[in-house]
C-alpha cells in the first residue's frame, strides 16, 4: 500500500494517459458547450441532462442504423432537444434557469432509465483511428492521437467555439449579452436570442459528448453512466476562469482525477474505493476553492434578462 510508488507507476504508464483522455473527451465536449453558454450569461446546469440524453439518443441511433456516425448525429440531436427545452423555458418564458435545469436533469434521468428498460438499445465501441507518427509519441501519443475517432471531433469543436465566440459578430453579441445585457439590448442585440443560441451550442456539444462516451466507454447504455460528471464539466469552466484554454486545462485535470481509480485498478493496486470515487469531486471543489476568487466571471452570469426590469 505504498501510495507514492503507486502514483509513480500510474504517471509513467501509457494506459493512464489513455484513460485520462477518455474522460477528458467527455468533459471537453460538455465544457466547451458550457463555456459558450456561460459567456452568454447562462449558468446552464442541465448539461448533465444533455450528456445523458445525448448518450441515450446515440444508443438509439446506433441501435437503428448500426453505425457510429449516426450515433454521434443522434447524440447531438438528443442534446439539442434538452437545450431547446431549457432555452425556451428559461430565456423565452421567464422560469428560473436553475429550476428548469435541475428539473430537466431529473426528468432525463427518469426518462432514459425508463426507456432503457423498455427498448434496451444496444451500441458498440467506435473504431480506433491512429494518426501516423504523432501516435508514436511517448506516453501521450496513443492517448491523444490513437483514440477512437469521435474523440477527434473535439479537435475541431474547440477551435470552432473559440472562433465563433471571439472572431465573429455573433460571438461579440453573445459575449455582450453575458457581460452587460442592458447595454447590449439598447445597441440592438437580441439578448435572450443570443443566450438561447448559446444554450443550443451547449446542447449540441454536450450531446456529442454523451454519444462519444457511449461509443468509447459504455457501449451498453446505463442511466447512471454520467453520474454527476456534467457538473464537473461546469466546474471546469469555473476553474478555467471562463477562458477556453483554462477550461480545457480544467477538463484534463479533473479527467485525471476521474480516471485515477481506473488506472490504479489497471495496474493492480487496491485503495480505499470510497476515497477514489469521491476524489474527482474533492479535487473539483478544492480547485474551485483556490481559483474561484482569482478569476472574473461574466458579469451577468446567471442573471435573467427581462427588458425594462433592473
Amino acid at each position, binding site marked *: 500500500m505504498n501510495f507514492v510508488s503507486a502514483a509513480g507507476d500510474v504517471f509513467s504508464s501509457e494506459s493512464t494517459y489513455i484513460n485520462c483522455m477518455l474522460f477528458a473527451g467527455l468533459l471537453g465536449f460538455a465544457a466547451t458547450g458550457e463555456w459558450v453558454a456561460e459567456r452568454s450569461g447562462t*449558468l446552464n*446546469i442541465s448539461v448533465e441532462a444533455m450528456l445523458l440524453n445525448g448518450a441515450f439518443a446515440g444508443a438509439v441511433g446506433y441501435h437503428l442504423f448500426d453505425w457510429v456516425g449516426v450515433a454521434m448525429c443522434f447524440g447531438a440531436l438528443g442534446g439539442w432537444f434538452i437545450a431547446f*427545452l431549457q432555452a425556451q*423555458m428559461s430565456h423565452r*418564458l*421567464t*422560469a428560473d434557469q*436553475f*429550476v*428548469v435545469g*435541475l*428539473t*430537466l436533469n*431529473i*426528468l432525463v*434521468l*427518469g*426518462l432514459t*432509465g*425508463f*426507456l432503457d*428498460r*423498455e*427498448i434496451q438499445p444496444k451500441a458498440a465501441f467506435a473504431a480506433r483511428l491512429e494518426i501516423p507518427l504523432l501516435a508514436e509519441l511517448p506516453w501521450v501519443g496513443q492517448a491523444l492521437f490513437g483514440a477512437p475517432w469521435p474523440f477527434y471531433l473535439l479537435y475541431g469543436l474547440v477551435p470552432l467555439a473559440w472562433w465563433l465566440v471571439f472572431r465573429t459578430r455573433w460571438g461579440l453579441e453573445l459575449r455582450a449579452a453575458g457581460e452587460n445585457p442592458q447595454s447590449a439590448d439598447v445597441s440592438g442585440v437580441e439578448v435572450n436570442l443570443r443566450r438561447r443560441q448559446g444554450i443550443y451550442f451547449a446542447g449540441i456539444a454536450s450531446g456529442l459528448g454523451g454519444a462519444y462516451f457511449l461509443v468509447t466507454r459504455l457501449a451498453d447504455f446505463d442511466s447512471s453512466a454520467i*453520474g*454527476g460528471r456534467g*457538473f*464537473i464539466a*461546469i*466546474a471546469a469552466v*469555473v476553474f478555467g476562469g471562463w477562458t477556453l484554454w483554462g477550461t480545457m486545462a480544467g477538463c484534463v485535470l479533473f479527467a485525471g482525477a476521474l480516471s485515477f481509480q481506473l488506472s490504479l485498478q489497471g495496474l493492480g493496486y487496491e485503495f*480505499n474505493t*470510497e*476515497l477514489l*470515487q*469521491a476524489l474527482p*469531486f*474533492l479535487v*473539483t*471543489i478544492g480547485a*474551485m*476553492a*483556490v481559483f*474561484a*476568487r482569482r478569476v472574473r466571471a461574466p458579469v451577468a452570469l*446567471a442573471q435573467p434578462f427581462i427588458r*425594462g426590469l433592473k
Partner: protein
Amino acid sequence: MSRGIRINEWLLMYVLSVVVALGVSSVVVEATGGDWWPVLEALVEGSLLAPGRWGETLGVAVPLVLVALGTVISSKAGLVNIGQEGQLLMGAAFAVYFGFLLGGPGVINLVVVMMAGALGGAVWASVAGLLRFWRGVPEVLSTLLLVVVASQAVGYGLKQQWLLLEPGADRGNRNQVSQQLASGNRVPRLDFFGNQFPVTVFVAVVLALLVAFMLARTVWGMRLRMLGHNHMAAHRVGVSATSYGLAALGVGGAFAGLAGAAMFAGGGFSFGNYQLGPGFADNIGWTGLLVALVARERVLVVPAVAFVFAGLRTGAGFVNSTGVESRITEVVQALLVLALLLPPAVVFLRTRRQARSVALLKA
C-alpha cells in the same frame, strides 16, 4: 381588474398544465407498448385507496416536507442550495452515530437522534456556505458536488465499526448496515383505521407553520427575504450577506438533515428497517427539492405538494404489477414540475404585454 388575472384563469391554467404533463407521460407509456390507464389506476390505488396506503403516503411526505422547508429558507435568501440529498444522508449518518454513541432512554435518545440529524445536515450545508462566502465558490456547484462526496463518506462509514457499521464479531460478508434503533427509541406510530403513520407528521406540519411565521413575521425572516430580493439594499441597511447567507444555508441543511434523522427513526415500509444502509437516501432529497420548486417558496403549499409527490412514490410500488417499469413515476414527477413552471411564466408575459398595450394607448 384589467391587468390582473382572475382566479379561475389561474385554476384553468394549472389544471391544463397538469393535464399536459399527464398527457405527455401517457404518450411515453403508450409509445413503449404499455397501457396508461392501468398505470394511473395503480398509482391512485397504491398511494391512497388500498388498505394502509394513505398512512404510508403520509409517512413518506414527512421527510419531503422537511427537505422542502429547508430549501425554501435558503432560496428566500437568494441562495441556490441543490445538495439536499447529501445533507439528508449526512444528517442520517450523524443521527446514527450520535444516537448510538450517547444512548439514553427512549424519548431522550429520540431527541438526541433528531438533533444530531439536524446538526449533520447543517454541517454539510455549511461546508458549501463557507466555500461560498470565504472562497467565492458558487453554492450551486459546491452543494451538488458534495452530494457525491457525502454518499461516498457514508459508504466508508458503513464499512467501519467505529463509525456506523453494526458492531458484531465475525460478520463476514453481510450487508453493510448500521445497528438497528431499539424499539423503545423509535418515533411512535399512530393507527387510524388501519393506516399507520409516524407522529412526525404533526411535527412536520407544526414546523411548516413555524417557518411560515418566521419568514413572514419576524425580523430575521424579513432580513432574509430582503437579502434574496435585493442584496444591495440589504447591504445598505446593514444585513450582512455572509452571516445571513450562512445562516440560511445552515438552517436549510439542518432541515434536510432532520429529514434524514426522521427517516431513520421513523422507519416504516419505505425507509428501511430503522437502520442506515446503502441507498438510504433514495432520492428523497431530490424529490423534496422538487416539492419546494413546485410550491414556489410558499411554505403553506409545501405539505400539499409533498403529499402528492409522496403518493407518486408509494404508488410506484403498485405500478410494477401493470407490466410497466415503475420508473415512469420519476418521469411523471419531473414533467409535473416542468408543467407547473409554465402558468406563472405565461401570466408574467401576458401582464407585461397588457401593460405595454396600455402604455401605447396613452401615448
